[in-house]
Structures are given as structure tokens and as C-alpha cells.
């Protein structure tokens, strides 16, 4: 089971980049898929540990948390960074914000619905983050195989955003609808009249011009 050194180097390069760009921690199942089942869990774990060792001396470390692997700052480095910019507000990842928007606007929705809309898998900790914040809750279960949970927003979500009801959310804009075009797209018959009017005007002007130029 000796893997070529070159292969190992490339694999670690890919694992490192994958974890670094991911919005959420990366788990073993994902890494296996990354290598299309080419390598065993044991092999991948070995690479992870080697990567971990290679980051030992840096300001950021590779750690395993409940939902997978991620890079995070070491406490001493974080202190120095905080000293420069103490009041930097934390931000939710794009995955969290988009999931929240989908639940708010399309509730009740299942995780499958969210995945379909976002076009990507929704990590369970994305929803957990929103549940922990008290913004999202399970409303019920859809009566289909697997009985997926239906999510909706809570009263606290409305309170925290300082609104009284979902209807106060900023209006949705469907990319299909084009509010400005509505005014412009008159039924064709009416439009034709406008054009005919314009053509009439143009004709009259032309005739005027012709007669006046003849007169000179």
C-alpha cells in the first residue's frame, strides 16, 4: 500500500486547498469523493495528519471539529490580530446567509428544497448554526420517503430583524419579472398606434420641409 511520493504530494496539495476554500469544515466522505474513491480512508487520514504536522509551526492550524476538518487560527496569533482591529464584526458565511434567505422567503422548505435552489449540498451545521441562533425551527415533516424536516423562521428571527411579519421582508424580485418593462410593453395594438402617430408626424414634417424648401 505504498503510495508514490509524487502522488502523495499532489493529494496533500489538493486536500489542503479544498479545506482552505471550503465554506464549512470538510469531512472524510467529501475527501473520499474528491479522490473518486481512489484512496482508502486510512490513506487520506495519514495525509491529513502529515498536513497537520506541516502546519504545526504556523499561525494557523489544521484541526478536526465535529463536522470535519478545517484551518483555524491559534489563540496567540488571534490575540495579535484582534489587537489591530478589535471591533471587527463576525460574519456568517455565504452558505449560511443564502440558506437563511431561502428559508425566510420560501418556508416551509426541506433541506432538499434548499439544496435544489442553491445547487449545492447544504452542510448540516449550516442549518444547525441557524437553529442555534434561534432563527430557524422545524415546523413539521414532509410526507415523503425519509420524512424530511420542514424548516421555517421563528418569531425571534422577526424580532432580531426588527420586523413584525414576513410580509415586511424586502420584496422579492423575481429575475423573470421586470417591473420596468411592464410600463413599456403595451399591448401591440396600442404600440402600433404610437408608431403610426410617430410616422404621421414624421411624414408631416417631411412634407412641410419639402414644400418650404421648394418655396425657397
Amino acid at each position, binding site marked *: 500500500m505504498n503510495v508514490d511520493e509524487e502522488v502523495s504530494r499532489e493529494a496533500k496539495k489538493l486536500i489542503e486547498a479544498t479545506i*482552505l*476554500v471550503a465554506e464549512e469544515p470538510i469531512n472524510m466522505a467529501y475527501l473520499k469523493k474528491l479522490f473518486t474513491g481512489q484512496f482508502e480512508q486510512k490513506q487520506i487520514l495519514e495525509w491529513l495528519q502529515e498536513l497537520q504536522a506541516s502546519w504545526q509551526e504556523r499561525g494557523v492550524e489544521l484541526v478536526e471539529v465535529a463536522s470535519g476538518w*478545517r*484551518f*483555524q*487560527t491559534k*489563540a496567540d496569533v*488571534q490575540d495579535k490580530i*484582534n489587537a489591530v482591529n478589535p471591533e471587527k*464584526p*463576525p*460574519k*456568517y458565511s*455565504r452558505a449560511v*446567509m*443564502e440558506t437563511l*434567505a*431561502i428559508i*425566510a*422567503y420560501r*418556508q*416551509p422548505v426541506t433541506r432538499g428544497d434548499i439544496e435544489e*435552489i*442553491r*445547487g449545492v449540498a447544504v452542510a448540516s451545521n449550516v442549518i444547525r448554526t441557524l437553529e442555534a441562533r434561534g432563527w430557524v425551527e422545524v*415546523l*413539521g*415533516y*414532509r*410526507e*415523503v420517503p425519509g420524512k424530511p424536516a420542514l424548516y*421555517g423562521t421563528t418569531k425571534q428571527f422577526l424580532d432580531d*430583524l426588527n*420586523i413584525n411579519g*414576513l410580509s415586511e421582508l*424586502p*420584496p*422579492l*424580485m*423575481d*429575475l*423573470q419579472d421586470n417591473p420596468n*418593462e411592464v410600463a*413599456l*410593453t403595451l399591448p*401591440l395594438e396600442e*404600440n*402600433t398606434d*404610437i*408608431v*403610426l402617430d*410617430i*410616422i*404621421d408626424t*414624421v*411624414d408631416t414634417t*417631411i412634407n412641410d*420641409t*419639402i414644400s418650404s*424648401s421648394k418655396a425657397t
Partner: protein
Amino acid sequence: MSDAEILEVPITQPIAKVKGEPIASLPTDLYIPPEALEVFLESFEGPLDLLLYLIRKNSLDILDIPMAELTRQYMTYVEAMRHGRLELAAEYLVMAAVLIEIKSRMLLPAPPAANEEEEIDPRAALMRRLLEYERIKMAAHELEEMPREGREFKRAHAWVDETLVERLPDVTLRDLQDAWVLVLSRIKMNKHHRISREQLSVREYMAKILKRLNEHKYVAFMDLFDEGMTVSIAVVNFIAILELVKERMVNVSQSEAYAPLYVSLGGEPVELTT
């Protein structure tokens, strides 16, 4: 080839003498299915785009546009749209008028030159617009091709150790709307989800009903309609129930004919038989 020569072609004439007479320039045997026309229309970003297309396709000189030829072609497409009973944005019709105006002005004897200055080509403004639009069109294409964050590359980032951060992120309505707009631009490429304000209110009532059913195992259908409901809210509420049934989130059951309807959460229909 002068414009006057091209103008001999009779097809352009009916457009010019529309007064009283219905527009008859379109040959009767021209049939294009409306759906195809719709696709055709959607393929162009507007009249400038269509004109540019006609010019490039016919290898016309954009700096010396044969107006009669271009107007004739343009009107044929506009007519085809009209026959397909397609709603045509006003811009297309305004452009038709502009083309006809330019064409007409070119037929006029040049007004006696008021001064030494060169006389202005009536086509100049249109030409400038077409060139500028084409330039922008190409630039848009090149921007699209450039490597873009999130597509060709992504930002790498590390987490801040959670124990160090106690502050929770603030989210504003604007953040939420921004997130939604991003979601929408993603949806757009997959399928045409229809999302409207109307649907949101149905969704809101769907959520309300589910919450209520969570508290009370099952609720009489009629009890889901509060007395104070306005007609429109009652309708939305009813649609919400139908939607819930359709999406298999709730069950509606009845113990016997004419008995009251009961609504329960999806799953086991509530046994009501006595």
C-alpha cells in the same frame, strides 16, 4: 448603391403608407411559430442588438448604412413579431420610427447649406450608438471570460477559533435581500422558479398552519379560518392549505360523508371514526 435605388423595392412602401390601410407588407406565407418567435425576441437585448445583428450578418458597412435596406429588414422582423401576437417592447417600435425618419430625411434634397460646415449625415447619431453598443457588447463578453472569484478561483480562508468569538454576527434586512438576490441569480440558470410577493404570503400562511398543527395534533378545517379574516386572506389561507396538501405536508381527513373535515400534520391520518 444609393438609397434611392433600393427604395424602389416595393416591400418598404406599405409601411410608409399605413394610414387607413392595415399593414400589408408581410407576405401571407410567412409563418413562424409564436414560440420560436419568442425565443428569437429573447435572443436580442433590444433594437440596437437586432440592428447590429442584421448589419453584421449582411456585411453592411456600419459607417455607410444603406438605410432603406436595413429599415426593410428590420420592419420585416417587427412585423413577424406582430403576426406572432408577441408583446413587443416599445423600444423596438420607437426604433422603427427612428429608422423611417432617417430614411425619409435621406430622401430629402439637402437643405441649402447655411454655412461652410459639412452637412450632417442623418445616420450619424444611429451609427455612433451602434458602434458604442457593439463596443460594450464585446466588452461584456470579455468580462464574462475573465477569471472570476467563485468560478475560476476561490478565496482561501481560515477560521477564527470559535471560543474566542462571542459576538454573534449581525444580519440586516439588506444582508438578507442581498443573499436572496445572489440565490436568485443562481436559480436563474437552473430553472425558471416563479417567485412573487403573492406566493410569499401563501408561504407565510403555510408556515402559520403548520405551527398551529404542531401545537394541536389536529384542527378542524373550519377552525383554520379565523372569523376576522378578510376575504383575500381567507383565500390565501385556503390556497395555503391546498398547497400543504399538495406538497404532502398535511392530511385532510373526514370520518364520513358531510362530516367535518380535519387537518393534521403529514403522516398518519388522524383516526376520527368513533
